[in-house]
């Protein structure tokens, strides 16, 4: 469609206005949410979709959440022929465009006169969703019946701006912390209603014809930017990326996935084929349609210029081929997608971004992908508050980012699917909200994968209950298969989970449910990011800096980076033995 919108200044003004409305939604959710996973860790995303189901503005949402809200609005339009102003819909159905059951999405259709012009979408990961166990992640559930989540397949939850009482009642009956859920529902609803208010004002100010013209022009601009980005960054050709999720009982060899990519740089088009992958597994690790697409899109955007708008305009340059009943495809009911936003999702991001590293100077190494016990769902009762029940995911984890061709890995990646956007919980706020004590959070020396550009190290986190017992449920990956390096870069360290205080320290699996008694501790380490390029080619000064700041040890400097460092950090006498280094580097390889 050729647009007739010819005012570039107004184009920029309106594009920023839509993003600003998205940020107002984000602020509303952050300020009013009740659970820490939403209010502190910001495990939520807001977006604005056109009335005809095209993603228009994504407001720096978590990458794993953004693609797919337009699939959800499509299901709203298909299922509800009596949409009206004042409606709101609750949607957590992974077969109709949602990510996974834990993400409750609130959809508010925005009307201008009689016309349904936009849908505001606020998606937030709930503290509890009524699963069969007190966790929103069920890695071993064979299907949605074992998973136990309440399903809301695009259910009307407000009409005329009033709650539909039986839907609220249904949720409250099965969700372990009904008041927390209801508060978080209101927070998401408020975010969507704020967008409704502001979008209505925006159309009133500029007129509907201007806004219509803007929408088409903005999609066209985004598409052009995407084509340019592909042409500038990615040579034409075929690329294949691989990554393997750790073994689980139903897949004892692990789950190996591959991403086949075909780039036509001249046309600015990319085809990604995920069909040659294993069938769905009878476990909670399957991708939903939204996340399967989402995560390869994230991996692709990670290697393109960062200021390309993420919307249905830029998506026009991209085709993702999926097949039904594929672990990274379209799941059939009642396949379980409980963990569709992490684990294999993280591996998909990694496989995609690393695929492009077959070309020198392009792509990214794998990021650490272990959402382990340092990001557990904790539950129990709080003796400080009359034994009130609590359940909530803590977000203390850190996995190191993978290195790029020019830069070391990003330290606070958290997970590939969140791309560094997830906030970290505040230790003090978490200890105030829940009866736990956090003993340490520290960066692991030598944890990042070595390389000419170094992967970022993970954190080590130790915590446990205070004055009570604590149920912890965690489902981390990366205990067996670390984040891989590219172009000679090394893998980062793998994840570990240690139970401390019950006799000898016990090494545990990175997935499980553990009840901690008062005084016992879990110590979890995430995965380091992979390195990019041969570590023996890292600049000697950078290696010395790394030793000085304890990113790496003197031993790793010598054995891996081939740089001989003498002296000690404590005495501030660290320096490079240039002669010994020259000899060592000469004999490398």
């Amino acid at each position, binding site marked *: 469609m050729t647009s007739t919108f010819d005012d570039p200044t107004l184009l920029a003004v309106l594009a920023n206005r839509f993003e600003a409305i998205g940020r107002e939604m984000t602020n*509303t959710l952050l300020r009013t949410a009740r659970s820490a996973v939403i209010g502190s860790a910001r495990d939520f995303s807001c977006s604005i979709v056109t009335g005809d189901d095209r993603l228009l503005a994504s407001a720096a949402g978590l990458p794993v959440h953004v693609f797919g809200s337009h699939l959800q609005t499509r299901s709203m339009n298909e299922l509800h022929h009596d949409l009206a102003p004042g409606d709101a819909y609750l949607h957590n159905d992974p077969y109709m465009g949602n990510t996974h059951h834990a993400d409750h999405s609130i959809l508010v259709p925005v009307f201008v006169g009689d016309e349904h012009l936009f849908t505001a979408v606020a998606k937030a990961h709930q503290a509890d969703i009524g699963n069969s166990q007190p966790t929103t992640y069920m890695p071993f559930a064979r299907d949605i019946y074992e998973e136990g989540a309440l399903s809301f397949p695009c259910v009307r939850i407000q009409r005329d701006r009033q709650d539909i009482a039986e839907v609220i009642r249904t949720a409250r009956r099965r969700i372990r912390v009904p*008041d927390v859920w*209801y*508060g978080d529902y209101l927070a998401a*609803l*408020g975010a969507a*209603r*704020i967008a*409704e208010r502001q979008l209505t004002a925006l159309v009133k100010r500029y007129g509907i014809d201007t806004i219509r013209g803007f929408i088409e022009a903005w999609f066209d601009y985004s598409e052009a930017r995407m084509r340019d980005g592909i042409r500038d960054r990615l040579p034409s050709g075929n690329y294949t990326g691989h990554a393997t999720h750790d073994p689980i009982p139903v897949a004892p060899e692990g789950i190996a996935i591959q991403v086949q990519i075909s780039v036509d740089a001249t046309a600015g088009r990319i085809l990604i084929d995920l069909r040659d992958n294993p069938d769905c597994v009878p476990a909670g690790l399957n991708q939903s349609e939204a996340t399967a697409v989402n995560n390869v899109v994230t991996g692709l955007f990670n290697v393109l210029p960062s200021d390309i708008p993420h919307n249905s305009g830029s998506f026009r340059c991209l085709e993702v081929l999926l097949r039904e009943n594929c672990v990274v495809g379209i799941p059939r009911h009642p396949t379980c997608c409980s963990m569709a936003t992490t684990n294999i999702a993280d591996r998909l991001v990694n496989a995609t971004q690393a695929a492009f590293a077959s070309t020198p100077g392009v792509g990214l190494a794998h990021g650490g992908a272990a959402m382990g016990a340092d990001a557990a769902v904790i539950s129990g009762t709080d003796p400080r508050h009359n034994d009130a029940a609590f359940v909530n995911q803590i977000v203390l984890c850190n996995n190191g980012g993978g290195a790029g061709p020019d830069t070391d890995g990003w330290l606070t990646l958290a997970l590939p699917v969140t791309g560094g956007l997830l906030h970290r919980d505040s230790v003090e706020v978490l200890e105030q909200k829940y009866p736990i004590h956090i003993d340490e959070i520290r960066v692991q020396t030598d944890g990042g994968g070595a390389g000419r550009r170094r992967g970022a190290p993970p954190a080590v986190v130790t915590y446990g209950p205070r004055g009570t017992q604590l149920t912890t449920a965690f489902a981390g990956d990366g205990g067996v298969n670390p984040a891989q390096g590219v172009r000679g870069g090394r893998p980062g360290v793998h994840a570990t989970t240690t139970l401390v205080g019950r006799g000898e320290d016990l090494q545990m699996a990175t997935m499980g449910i553990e009840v901690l008694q008062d005084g016992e501790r879990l110590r979890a380490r995430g995965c380091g990011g992979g390195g990019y390029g041969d570590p023996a080619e890292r600049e000697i000064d950078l290696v010395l800096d790394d030793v000085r700041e304890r990113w790496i040890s003197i031993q790793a400097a010598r054995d891996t980076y081939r740089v001989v460092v003498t002296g000690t950090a404590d005495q501030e006498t660290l320096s490079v033995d240039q002669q010994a280094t020259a000899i060592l580097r000469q004999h490398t390889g």
Partner: protein
Amino acid sequence: MRLPMVEITSFEDVTTIVEAFSAEHERLFAVRDDQSAVEFLVWRLQLRAPRPDPGNDPNRAGPAPHAGTATGHPHHPHPSERRTAVFDGRPRETDIFDGATLRPGARISGPAIIEEPTTTVVVPAAASVTVLPSGNYQMEISR
């Protein structure tokens, strides 16, 4: 959130302030929750009062030479110390003033340095500073 001033002496007063909270919540965030208890964790009070005479400002230490006058009379304060500082590329003995002790009407000729708790004002050689009744510094550059 900004709430009206309510003297709380009865249950109705509590209802009033809770209603005011919910209304403000709805204005800011588009939703309200009438079923949940409202817990106030942090109170902030905003007070407005006429500005005291800066010439008599008790936060400025030292005796006011002309207590009660807003403008202060012109005077040259004593430096709190002298230190070597570099001006125009050469070191020279420089008057250092403690900004908290300066009073309206004070005049300082450069080169000088005025030290404030959160900043440092450098007065170049060709400039002079007057402390205004408001407490602000007005610098005049004479070249």
